[in-house]
């Protein structure tokens, strides 16, 4: 077993263990912390796949922004946690069965696909994946339009989140 494989196994175990703990914990703050561990494991997988930029973005955006936002939301809705007895709903058996079936089905499908044992192509020494990605994201033959649409989407989400979460005034002035 090479070092790469050992790192992959350790990271996969870490990701799957923390994902399992995340979906089963009653305490949502613990669940959010396990989510951070799983997200960090995914960043390590990105490093194994030679996608260094995505690994950095994963840590910055997912752990630095999304997971922290989750923890804030958990703390802001704290009054509900004490009342909640059971973390799962009545149909969780069906959910478990569906998820297990889905997982086995996917793995069987993956096993039948011929290209699945392919090895990673060797990147030549002068390949700069970050440079390629950056060029593709802003070049007109590349992905400049999806890139700009994603920025508009983020702006729309920002304004939408502000509008939705703004406290409502009890009696607005126009109703008189």
């Amino acid at each position, binding site marked *: 077993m090479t070092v790469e494989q050992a790192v992959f196994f350790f990271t*996969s175990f870490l990701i799957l263990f923390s994902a399992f703990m995340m979906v089963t914990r009653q305490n949502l703050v613990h669940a959010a912390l396990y989510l951070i561990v*799983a997200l960090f494991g995914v960043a390590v997988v990105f490093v194994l796949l030679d996608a260094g930029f*995505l690994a950095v973005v994963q840590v910055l955006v997912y752990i630095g922004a999304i997971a922290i936002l989750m923890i804030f939301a958990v703390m802001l809705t704290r009054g509900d946690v004490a009342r909640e007895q059971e*973390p*799962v709903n009545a149909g969780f058996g069906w959910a478990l069965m569906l998820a297990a079936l889905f997982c086995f089905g996917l793995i069987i499908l993956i096993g039948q696909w011929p290209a699945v044992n392919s090895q*990673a192509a060797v990147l030549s020494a002068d390949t700069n994946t970050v440079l390629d990605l950056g060029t593709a994201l802003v070049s007109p033959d590349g992905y400049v339009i*999806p890139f700009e649409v994603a920025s508009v989407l983020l702006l729309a989400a920002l304004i939408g989140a502000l509008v939705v979460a703004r406290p409502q005034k009890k009696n607005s002035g126009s109703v008189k």
Partner: protein
Amino acid sequence: MIPLSWYLSLAAALFSMGLYGVLARKNAIAILMGVELMLNAVNINLVAFWRYLTPENVAGQAFAVMVFAVAAAEVAVGLALVISIYRRRKTVSADEINLMKW
């Protein structure tokens, strides 16, 4: 060397766990966390396919960047909705938010 199937299996397992979290959890924030796991599994797949099948074409990585942006937008709007619901109804349990349930 690591064959492609290992990455795909890891992503399949992670996606299924996220699916279980989305379907089974009561708390709306826990459901959003499950969605994050599923998006991460998709990202692993996209990057693995880019690295193993088309390393000269960065489409996989570019798509993964779009998924990051969409995930950030989704979680911002989702948590805003959760906080707004909590203000009005003092609950974030998906079982009790049944105003629009048929």
